[in-house]
């Protein structure tokens, strides 16, 4: 596994997770009158949530500027956060 900071690990984890939700779970839904609706719900949910997460992580992949902090925050975080 990579050290903190890659795109790879989160990408693989999330893609597998939502891929399972959208691609594998529909096959496991028992047959019944609601199967079509449930499958539609699973696929739509997987697509929406995955896309939303992807946008969030890609927007932070290469930040063009950094956060501006107050000096009090800096004093505290210098020692508190690694």
């Amino acid at each position, binding site marked *: 596994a990579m050290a903190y900071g890659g795109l790879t690990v989160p990408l693989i984890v999330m893609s597998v997770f939502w891929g399972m939700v959208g691609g594998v779970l529909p096959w496991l839904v028992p047959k019944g009158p609601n199967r079509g609706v449930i499958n539609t719900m699973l696929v739509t949910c997987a697509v929406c949530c995955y896309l939303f997460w992807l946008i969030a992580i890609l927007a932070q992949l290469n930040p063009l500027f950094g956060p501006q902090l107050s000096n009090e925050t*800096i004093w505290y975080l210098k020692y508190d956060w690694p």
Partner: protein
Amino acid sequence: MGSLFRSEEVCLAQLFLQSASAYSCVSELGERGLLEFRDLNPKVSAFQRRFVGEVRRCEEMEKTFTFLQQELRDAGRVLAPCPDNPRAPLAREALRVQEQSEQLAQELREVSRNRASLRGRLRDLRQYLHVLREGRRFTSLPASLGSPPRSRALSEREPLLDPSLHQHLDRKINFVAGVIHPWRVSAFERLLWRACRGYLVASFVEMPEPMEDPTTGESITWVIFVISYWGEQIGQKIRKISDCFHCHVYPYPESEATREDTMSGLHSQIQDLSVVLEETEQYLAQVLDKVVLALPTWRVQVQKMKAIYLILNQCSFDVTEKCLIAEVWCPVRDLTQVQDALRQGSYKSGSSVECFVQRIPTSESPPTLIRTNKFTAGFQSIVDAYGVASYQEVNPAPYAIITFPFIFAIMFGDVGHGLLMFLFALWMVLYEDRPSLRQASNEIWLTFFEGRYLILLMGAFSIYTGFIYNECFSKATAIFPSAWSVAAMANRSSWSSDYLATHPFLTLDPNVTGVFQGPYPFGIDPIWSLATNHLNFLNSFKMKMSVVLGIVHMGFGVVLGIFNHVHFRQWHRLVLEFLPEMIFLLALFGYLVFLIFFKWIKFTAANSLVAPSILIHFIDMFLFTSNADNLPLYQGQVPVQTALVVLALASVPVLLLGTPLHLWCRQRSLRSSPATPVAAREQEPLLEGQEAGNSVNATKEDVESRGHGPDAKARDTAAAGSGGRLQHSDLAEIFMHQAIHTIEYCLGCVSNTASYLRLWALSLAHAQLSEVLWTMVMRNGFVRLSYVGGVVLVPVFAAFAVLTVAILLVMEGLSAFLHALRLHWVEFQNKFYVGAGYKLCPFTFTPDPWE
């Protein structure tokens, strides 16, 4: 596949009902609630219909029931709703119900009348008794106890009057005694005095117990008066005056002995009367008991009967007058059930000939039937609120089950608020069977309760987006360690304490090694909630997110149109409408999405000073200019962009002229070759018969093809010339309609994309409101660290909680709900939905709610 994706198949059918068994057949069908009956006698007024007599009979019975119910309510009884579900009564039973109810009503009327008269008589007797008893005070020597006499100025010298004292006067003293309403006493006195000029002595005393006023029914303390006078004329005047004042005058015997006799007589009369009255009340209670038992069932039965006769009025009789014909809309799946119901009805009415149902072809557009369960009903209703789906077109509801809560959650994203919403909805869902929740009378509560599954999903998605936005009651959580290292920046840039003291704000630079370690794995990095320039980053992120999600949503809407074109076998629309629409959307706005993702991936902090602006590039793309200061994103950008714009512009005339020209060619070929096989015409889409005016998506062709159905054959045989003139005007309309559609689509693409920016705007508003509430309300509770601070925290938290629920949950929730609804109804459904249908309303017996 469930029928949620498009309407079920609904067909027009004819029912042939034998007259003898028509009633019970319709009763069976009503119990099952399968069909919608059509009115075959629309021009006939209500008074001329066949079964108007029966309907009138039902209404008379209902009048009797209303009277009975009124009596029950006056007696203070409560009517319970009908426990079981009785079927509509047959003729004999109905007659019995009518007779019994009328008999009960008659009895009730008589008993009530008796009771009222008995009561009146009892009241009179008691008043008389009181008059005699109190009057004794004025007319006999020993003063009796009781309320003090209230004599006024005119008899100030001698309130007590003894006839024996005045025996030596040569006048005979007479008495008028009675009872008067207390408010009229002073006027009465004054008038007496003025009229009779002191030739009388009037005494007034209040009755010891209050009694009921017969006219108004309220309990009043009457005033007893005894007037002693001498002279016949005075007597007449007094009696007239008492008449005017509506007093009850009672004969006042002169001698003491007669008075005593009368009083004892009155006593016994009152006793007897009380006994009789009690028995009457008991009998009345018995009658009311009978009514309470029978009335609910009767009411339901008569309601059903009336409904059945109203339906039978809509049928037409056939020539032989022995058979009723009804036209119904019936779901194809239920035809066997209908046949079964008819068989049962015929069997129950004892007729040997069976009624049957027969499907008939129609060119009209059938009603839409989409079966929902308790979960999907809420989502279907918000789609239907905009417009009921046209017959068999794609239903947006199954997709809205997820996309609507998701779009709501983008604008509402906060873990804490989402969790509260989710728990509230969970409570409603878990206790949904409780009648106290289900049958509340508050309309606002009922609205929330109907949408409980909607709110459940909205809350759940809000929790997810809250984690991505990293906001929990406006505070960020550091589930994973933050990717920004302040220590690294401080060490590299040698930020000593003195340096920090002189610089209140400092920015972390991602170019410095070790400061930025990679993207936060799930959501927005928690350092941004501590930064003062967090809006710079978040605004850019959220705007791009809104645009990307909006274009994906709209693209999905255009793709859903494919299902419509395929189902209605309009293949030309696939090529001439879907394809140019998709190319236009993707070439321009799909490219914008690509630019956004590309810039995120390719440009880093190293070249942040020269990073190009996507917006300027996009504008230059349309204007075919270029800006020297704006570096290209990739090599060859300008020719690629030019090609895309040309492609998009080229698809516009295809969209504008493609379908009309195709239709024109088809009509020309139809005209020139009359031997076209009938099969081609039978493939006309089922969108015939709809008004195309109110939707952009119902093209003029749909209305045009209505003309193809019935009289296509006639047109073939008619002269081509006359047909040609007809085509010309239709074609102009088709062109016009397609032009409107094209303009609306192309301009709509631009404006709708911008419209999705409301996702950014509302999520910004929510975040800011949340932050303000925290910093200005809740944080003040943590200022003092002593025990006093702990006590102060309680009201501060109360204020924080109330404001959170009122402003952030209710107000922001409603606002985000509304905007999510608008995005679905306008921006999403514009791309494929017609929504010009009408719902199937089956004939079913709905229970009438008691008031």
